[in-house]
C-alpha cells in the first residue's frame, strides 16, 4: 500500500528518527529498515530519503559523520541528537494521541 505524500510528509521524519533512536545508521540501511519494519508501507524512494535527512540535519535533530574506516570506501552515518530525541518523544505522544482519536472514530482497529 502506498501512503499519500501529505501523510508521508508527517510520518516520514518521525519514522526515520525512530529508526535512528536505536543507533546510527547509513542511508541505504535506513531505506531497507523502513521497508522491512513497515511492511513496505513506509518505504520511500531514495529521492525522498536524502532530502529528508538533510532537512532533519538542518533542524539539528540528527547529526552526520563520514566514516572512512569501515572498509575501503566512505559512508555517511546519521544519528539522533539530544534535540532530536526530545522531538521524537513529543512526536511519539502526538502520534499515540492521534491513533487513539482515530480509533475512537472507528478509523483504526476494531
Amino acid at each position, binding site marked *: 500500500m502506498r501512503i499519500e505524500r501529505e501523510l508521508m510528509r508527517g510520518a516520514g521524519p518521525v519514522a526515520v528518527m525512530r529508526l535512528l533512536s536505536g543507533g546510527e545508521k547509513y542511508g541505504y*540501511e535506513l531505506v531497507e529498515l523502513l521497508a522491512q519494519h513497515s511492511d513496505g508501507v513506509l518505504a520511500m*524512494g531514495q529521492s525522498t530519503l*536524502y*532530502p529528508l535527512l538533510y532537512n532533519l540535519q538542518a533542524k539539528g535533530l540528527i547529526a552526520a559523520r563520514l566514516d572512512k574506516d569501515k572498509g575501503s570506501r*566512505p559512508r555517511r552515518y546519521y544519528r539522533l541528537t539530544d534535540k532530536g530525541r526530545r522531538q521524537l518523544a513529543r512526536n511519539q505522544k502526538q502520534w499515540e494521541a492521534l491513533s487513539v482519536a482515530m480509533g475512537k472514530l472507528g478509523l483504526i482497529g476494531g
Partner: protein
Amino acid sequence: MSEAAPPTLIRQLRNTPMRDLVRGRVTGRLDVKRRIATSELPEPVKSLIQRIVRISRLWKLEKLDIADDLIAHFRDGLESGATPAELINSFGDERRAAKLIRRAKKRNRPLPWHILRAFVWILVALVALYLGLAAYFFAGRPTPTINYVDQLNEKTKRASPEQLAWPLYQKVIAQLSGTEPNHREMIVYPGGEPDLIDQTPSGPRWPELVAYLDAHSDVLKLIRQAAAKPVLGFNLATGDWPKGLPGPLPPRSVRPSDKIPPLIFVLLPHLNEMRTIARLAAADARLARERGDAHQFMRDCTAINGISDQLRADFLVTNLVSLGIREVLLNEVESAVTEKPEQLSDTNLQQLAHRLSVPQTAADLISFDGERLMLHDSIQRMYTDDGKGDGRITPEGIEYLTWASSIWNGEHPDAMVALSGPAALVAGASRREMRAEADHMMDVADAQLNQPIRESKASPVEQQLLEWSHSPTDRLKYALLLTLMPRVDSTRFISDRYLGHRDGVITGIALELYRRHSGRYPDTLQQLTPTLLPSVPVDRITGDPVRYRLINGRPIVYSVGADRDDDGGRPAIDRQGNPNPAQWAQPTSGNPDGDWILYPQSATPTQASTTRGK
C-alpha cells in the same frame, strides 16, 4: 578528455578549496565529476548521480557531499544484490530529488549566508518597489482648476466703480510721482535724520515739508476722498519673477501666465505706495495740529484709519502694512493728546477714542485668509486630483516645493526630483492629508488670533511646526506647511503690542476728558468708568487692570511688564540699554526689569530719566 583520467593542474587548482591553497596544497578534492567517474559504479548509475548533482546547482562542497552519499548508497544497494536498473528505478524522480536535495542543503548553509540572502531579496524587492513607485510618480500630473487670484479679487469685482478707492489712489500716485521731490524720494533721507515725510515741527526740514503739503493740498483732498471708499479695489495679478532677484528660478511647470495664475506669483506693488500715502496724510495731520486746525486733523485721522481698513485683507503682509498704518494713526493721536490737547474738543477726543477702540483682538487686525488660499493653491499645483479630494504628489509638485523653500539655489533639481520623488509618494502626505492638515493648522492659527498671548504663550501651530522640523519623516511629509505656514507667534506679538499701546492711548484720552471736567486727574482709573471708559483696560501681560500714576503732574498708564513687577512706571531697558517694553515671557532673570509704558510712549525716555533720578 575522460573524467577518470588524471586531472590537469588547472582543473586541480579550480577544484581545490581556498584553505588547502593557503596551506600550499593543490588537492583538487572538490572535483565532483572525477569523484563520480572514479566510483567504480555502473555507467547508468554514474550518469544518474552526475545529473542529480548538476541539476542541484549547489556549492562544490555540497555537491561533493551529495555525490558521496549517493555513491555510498548505490554501492550498498549493489552489494545487497540489487541490480543497477532496480536501484535506478527505486530511486524515483531524479529532478524532484535534485530539487528537494537543493532545498534541504540550502537550509544547512551557515547563518551569515541566510542573512545575506534575505538582505539581497529585500534589496531586490525594494528596487522593484522603487521602480514601480517611480513609474507611478512620474506618470502623475497636477491639474489646477480653482483660480484663487480670482477669488481674492471677488470683492473688487462685486463692488461698483464708485466704491473703489484704487482709481483715485492711482491719480494720487501719478500726481505725486511727477513732482519734486516725488513721494518715493520723500521717504529716503540720508544722514540719519527722519525722512522728510516724517518730519515734526521741531525737525530741521519741517518748513520744507510744510511747503510740500501746502503745494499738494489738492492731492491730500484726493487721498481723503479715496480713503473714504469702502473697497480698496486693487486688482491682484501675477507678474514675472523679478529679474536679478536672488533665489532659485521659478519652476518650469508654474508660470505667471498660466491659465490658472499661481497665487505665489501675485505681486503687491501697491503696499509701499499705500504706506507712503498714509504717512503723507499723517504729515498733514501734524501740520493741521500745528496750525490749530482740529477739523483738518480729524479728517486726516479719518483718512489714515480708512486706508488701514482698506488694506485689511488678502495676505498677512498686507495686514501687517495695515497694522503699521494704524500705528501711524495711534502715534499722531497720542502726540495730539499729550502735546496740545486743548486743540481738540471733547467730541473730537471721543470720536478718536471710539475709532481706535474698534479692534478688540488680533483677529480684528490680522487675517490669515490669503495664506490659507496660498496653501490650497499650492496643493492643487503639487498633487494629482482624483476628483474626490485626494491625489498624489507629482514631479511638478516636488519642483514647486523645492523652489518655494529655496533649497536649490538657481538650479532645476531634476536629479533630486528623480530620486526623492518616488520616496515622497510613500513618506509624503497625500493630497487629502495635506489639505486636512493645512486647514486644521490654519483653523488653529485663526483661533489663536482671538486669544491674548498671556493665555497661551506658545502657539500650537508653532509647536507643531517645530516638532515636524525635528522629525526626519514629518519634515518631508509636511514640507509644504513648514515652508508656507505663516509665523503665528510673531504676528500675535505685533498685534498685542499694538493693542496694548492702543489701550494706553484710549485711557490717555479718557484721562484728558476727566481733567477737563474735574480740573485734575483722577486718583484711580476706576473713576473713569463707566462714563469715559467702559472698563479699565487689562494689562496684556498679566490680565490685571493696567496701572496708572502721575509723574510730575502728568499721567502715565503702564503694564507691569515681563517681570510682572510694578516698577512705578519706570520703563524696561534691556541689557543693551534699549527700551524693551513688551515681553510675554515667564518671569526669569532674563526678563528686563521695568514696566511697559502704554501711554504716553513718546514721552517715555524723559520720564525714564526722571524716574531713575528719583
